[in-house]
């Protein structure tokens, strides 16, 4: 029973960290219509920034500044936000696909830096000894897991409430207006690019914060934590929950993480240990097919708020209608 509660707390902590990333993505995609397929990169930036700021001094690599955990989290948000703003500035005046390609590139490069800049990131060995909040409680796993859960609950709640507030604020209304009808919004004197960069930066900062939280709960990070599969999982969470809805983002995360963890357990029971790597890839196939099916039959997910009209120029619209008459 105690074990079960402990596992439940651990499960929820992980799921809520995912939900934080999904909330960041929902601000970028659901509210603003910005397509980020490199979010693993921003999560990694947050994790590494916070780890560098808070770990004790290490002769093998740069830094280890031993700062308080909260400073690490703030630092993660700042660096993640700046990275996202730079990415946005480079691409947001162009067609929306360019943002997808660029963010994809950002994730590749962050992964490369994590793997190869040994002086900064510890290379393939990662960074250990990241201070854990309530590390003193590690002796009693149940208490430790529950206090972790409490922290992440509070952070997620704060993020959720602020995002709800933001999306109803004038700022959020401008974003939605840009998403729905860019030309109308611009004609009202709103700078599309300026607002989009802001939304992208705030979303990136939230993702980076999630990365930092994760790093501090596990106490160890390595480049393998931030592969494209992470990006993919979070996208499925948002689509299942329904893009545009913050509540959907949270519930979708818990639900998809439940399916993922559950199917993981199932494969480990059903398959022999030497077959498990293969079974894991089958798990990804299943989730990928699920994403495509949801896009086809229920594009609004569980809680989605819209039949949306994303940024389309005249030619893209023509191409879109072409698909129906064509093949």
């Amino acid at each position: 029973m105690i074990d079960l509660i402990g596992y439940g707390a651990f499960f929820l902590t992980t799921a809520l960290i995912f939900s934080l990333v999904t909330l960041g993505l929902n601000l970028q995609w659901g509210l603003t219509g910005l397509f980020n397929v490199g979010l693993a990169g921003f999560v990694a930036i947050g994790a590494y920034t916070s780890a560098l700021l808070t770990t004790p001094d290490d002769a093998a690599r740069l830094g280890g500044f031993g700062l308080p955990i909260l400073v690490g989290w703030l630092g993660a948000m700042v660096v993640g936000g700046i990275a996202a703003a730079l990415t946005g500035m480079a691409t947001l005046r162009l067609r929306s696909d360019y943002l997808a390609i660029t963010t994809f590139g950002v994730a590749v490069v962050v992964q490369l830096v994590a793997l190869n800049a040994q002086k900064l990131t510890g290379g393939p060995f990662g960074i250990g000894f990241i201070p854990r909040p309530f590390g003193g409680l590690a002796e009693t796993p149940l208490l430790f897991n529950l206090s972790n859960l409490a922290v992440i609950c509070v952070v997620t709640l704060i993020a959720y409430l602020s995002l709800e507030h933001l999306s109803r604020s004038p700022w959020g209304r401008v974003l939605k207006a840009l998403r729905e009808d860019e030309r109308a919004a611009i004609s009202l004197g709103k700078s599309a690019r300026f607002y989009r960069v802001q939304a992208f930066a705030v979303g990136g900062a939230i993702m980076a914060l999630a990365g930092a939280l994760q790093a501090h709960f596990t106490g160890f990070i390595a480049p393998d934590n931030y592969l494209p599969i992470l990006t993919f999982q979070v996208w499925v969470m948002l689509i299942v929950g329904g893009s545009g809805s913050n509540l959907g983002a949270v519930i979708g995360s818990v639900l998809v993480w439940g399916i993922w963890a559950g199917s993981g357990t199932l494969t480990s029971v059903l398959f022999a240990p030497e077959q498990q790597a293969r079974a894991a890839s089958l798990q990804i196939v299943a989730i990928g097919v699920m994403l495509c099916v949801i896009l086809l039959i229920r594009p609004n997910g569980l809680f989605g708020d819209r039949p949306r009209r994303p940024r389309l120029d005249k030619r893209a619209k023509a191409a879109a209608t072409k698909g129906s008459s064509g093949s």
Partner: protein
Amino acid sequence: MSLQFVVDGLLTGSMIGLGAIGVTLTYSILRFSNFAHGDFMAWGTYATLAVVSAIGATFGKVAPIAPLSFGWPLLVALVVGMAFTALLALLLDKVLFSRLRSQGQAIIVVMASFGASMALRSLLEFTFTSRPTYFSRAIQIAMPVGFGIRITPDQIALLLLTAILVLGVHLLMTRTQTGRSMQALSQNPALARIVGIDVASVVRVTWIIGGALACVAGVMIGILVQIRPFMGFDMLLPMFAAAILGGIGSIPGAVLGGLIIGLAEAGAVQLIGAEWRAAVSFIILMAVLFVRPIGLFGVRER
């Protein structure tokens, strides 16, 4: 700095360029960035490998053609693989992309291609495991051709093959009715439809060309490097970068972009080390987006 990087760069560049042709065609005619294009590459290569093995099982060991490391089975298999990859692309369009396109949300199609990419790649991994395989384990002796450059017969053959294919696609695009329809559709879809261009057939040709060339690029990687489920996914960024550098919609641009990125990568390997190779295409991509977003041969979007 040895000039060897020129040969390596041209080879990598050919693979990137062949892949980028498909990317640029999908982007300009169907108007979305297809993240599954790299996985077409990997699927085509594994299909080719499967046919090679099947021929090997039927006819026994076949001697390779004189200086090359492969014989007629690979050539036959390549043709089958190209057809298979084209069919795969058509099938995916039928069940997924065309339906989403008809809903009129361009970026949703990109998202679906991202999901399809993950599923396709993992399915390969499930079937063939992530262990690398090879068409041939024979080692070829590289011939010196002067200036300190060495090249193997395989490499010469593949460069020739690339040149022939690129020329063929170029002629198809500029000299045939289908090619002109494709150009018309990419430049002005509405007008193209009004003048009675058969959109469905253009869409089909786009997928067939893109899929077949992706398969050739993948097989080249398989011959020169190795075959892995991730081989195409790793080529995605270079292919996008090449297509954007060349200017979306331009086939000569995609090839030239591929060659430039291939040469830059090979040069970077010599200068700063192989581990940073993948960053080269990102840096070129960002530079193009900042300086000349329409690329080398692009036309400004209206």
